[in-house]
């Protein structure tokens, strides 16, 4: 148990260091933007030199990169991410107003991908034969399907062609919202489904062929008990790592899918902000994304030794 505590401590410290380095990289690189961001955003509207100076001061552009970063980080720790240049609103307000749509979309897509992907993996690994071959081919195609290609095919077929689902907007009320988010969630989930089906199949297949499963069979353990307690239980550790990477990719996937389906979420806000060179918004969302990735990775690192105690001692399974 002591090794687990040490493992946790090291992971959490490592995560904090990663957030610091990554957020410094994000802030620093955006400060390197060629041209004056204030002028780039205010564009045609003529500002007096005094007004420009006031804006530069407000966004910390009159400071050096290091003091600017520390100042920005200090505010960010107090949940103050600054003010958007193009929306004239607090970045925190902009993001939190869109968190509901993006959060539901990610959860919806993650559930679809997990249930269908792991279900397919289980059926194809245990059954074998024709089901296995169909599932393997489907997973190969799904893995290669970019979310925006899936999005336009779904739009053309199910929204415009058949008219079963709305093409744009997020709807109002829970049921209506789920209905609106179904096509976007499917578009986001397809590639993740493919990866989970393939990796899950490989992990389960590897366990099924091992001696301890044969021994359990010999003891008379069969059917669901064999699969659940001896096969799935041991295949979980390699799967959790992949699930972590996949969930992280869903965070970024929202940028593409929300744009494709005209949803007003955090992902599409990031794209709008990048194209308008609204750097406080870009910095704020990038910081949130960095935090989310590090949290997901740390959770995976902390869960792994619970599933397979050997990982905490640094022994490869």
């Amino acid at each position: 148990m002591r090794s687990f505590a040490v493992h946790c401590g090291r992971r959490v410290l490592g995560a904090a260091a990663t957030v610091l380095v990554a957020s410094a990289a994000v802030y620093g690189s955006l400060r390197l933007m060629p041209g004056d961001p204030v002028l780039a955003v205010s564009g045609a509207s003529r500002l007096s030199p005094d007004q420009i100076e006031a804006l530069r001061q407000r966004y910390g552009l009159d400071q050096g990169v290091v003091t600017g970063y520390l100042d920005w980080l200090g505010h960010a720790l107090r949940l103050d991410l600054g003010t958007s240049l193009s929306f004239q609103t607090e970045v925190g307000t902009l993001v939190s107003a869109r968190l509901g749509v993006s959060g539901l979309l990610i959860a919806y897509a993650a559930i679809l991908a997990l249930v269908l992907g792991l279900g397919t993996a289980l059926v194809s690994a245990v059954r074998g034969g024709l089901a296995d071959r169909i599932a393997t081919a489907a997973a190969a195609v799904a893995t290669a399907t970019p979310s925006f290609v899936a999005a336009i095919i779904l739009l053309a077929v199910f929204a415009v062609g058949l008219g079963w689902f709305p093409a744009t907007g997020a709807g109002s009320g829970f049921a209506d919202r789920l209905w609106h988010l179904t096509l976007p969630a499917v578009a986001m989930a397809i590639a993740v489904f493919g990866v989970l089906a393939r990796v899950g199949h490989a992990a389960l297949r590897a366990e099924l062929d091992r001696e301890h499963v044969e021994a359990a069979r010999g003891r008379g353990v069969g059917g669901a008990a064999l699969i659940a307690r001896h096969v799935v239980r041991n295949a979980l550790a390699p799967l959790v790592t992949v699930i972590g990477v996949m969930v992280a990719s869903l965070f970024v996937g929202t940028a593409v899918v929300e744009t494709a389906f005209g949803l007003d979420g955090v992902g599409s806000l990031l794209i709008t902000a990048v194209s308008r060179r609204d750097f406080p918004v870009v910095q704020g969302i990038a910081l949130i994304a960095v935090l989310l990735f590090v949290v997901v990775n740390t959770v995976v690192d902390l869960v792994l030794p619970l599933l397979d105690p050997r990982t905490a001692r640094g022994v490869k399974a």
Partner: protein
Amino acid sequence: MTLAVAKLRPGRLRLRRRHPAAVVASAGFLVVVALAGLLAPLLAPHDPDTTSLLNSLAPPGTEGHLLGTDSTGRDVLSRVMYGARLSLLAPLGVVALSLVLGTALGLLAARAGGWADAVISRGMDVVFAFPGLLLAILASAVTGPGLTAPVCALAVAYTPFIGRIVRSAAVQEGARPYLEASRVLGYGEVSVTLRHLLPNILPVLVAQSALAFGYALVDLASLSYLGLGVRPPAADWGSMISQAQSAILQGSPWSGLVPGVAVLLTVIAVNVLGGHLGGTIARKQDT
């Protein structure tokens, strides 16, 4: 002389061996796409940028426009052929850059060991955790639309993809007697690494590069689809799909579906080839 070499190394005559149908089809498809892009000026039936508003959104099979026209009447087949150039070249650049970076860092980590290994490995772990697309979007935010910065960002994002494999392969190979033997013979570290280590891990590198190419292609096409990649009038498959978005909503999806299917089939073909190469290597190492 070449004949003698070929006889001494029968393994070189790879093409003679039978490959699964899917692998042959994938290789054939990639060759066709690459040739279509390369020879677009000779083969394309129309100029890709000539608009003809009278002839907009023609469905596939229209006389003179095999795959139809887009919302401004440009020939979709010609545009897909020209679009193949940037769509394939840019991810190729990503793979080339990350191969150089990843091989250098991986070999350095494996050969140097100690704290240099610890720093490089931990750094690659951190970069590996970040999705390439986010780095590409941020790069585009710094420099504005264009492919140069996203290509560099993706090269960094996929460096661990190559670097981790190179490092672990180099550590494994480094323990083998032939390396010790060449060291005893008085070859320097650099010479041993370049002449003996690298050729031995080359097959793994090729398989891993194929997968990275597929990922980079999708990331760059996504970026262009979002309007943050190629700048018009230059076009790749992603920007073609983006321009077709409103036509899709109006019920004429072809000008978007054609480049979409091009992306999809190319990525499938690359994955099949990469998987086949990786699988062949794994089988060879087992025996």
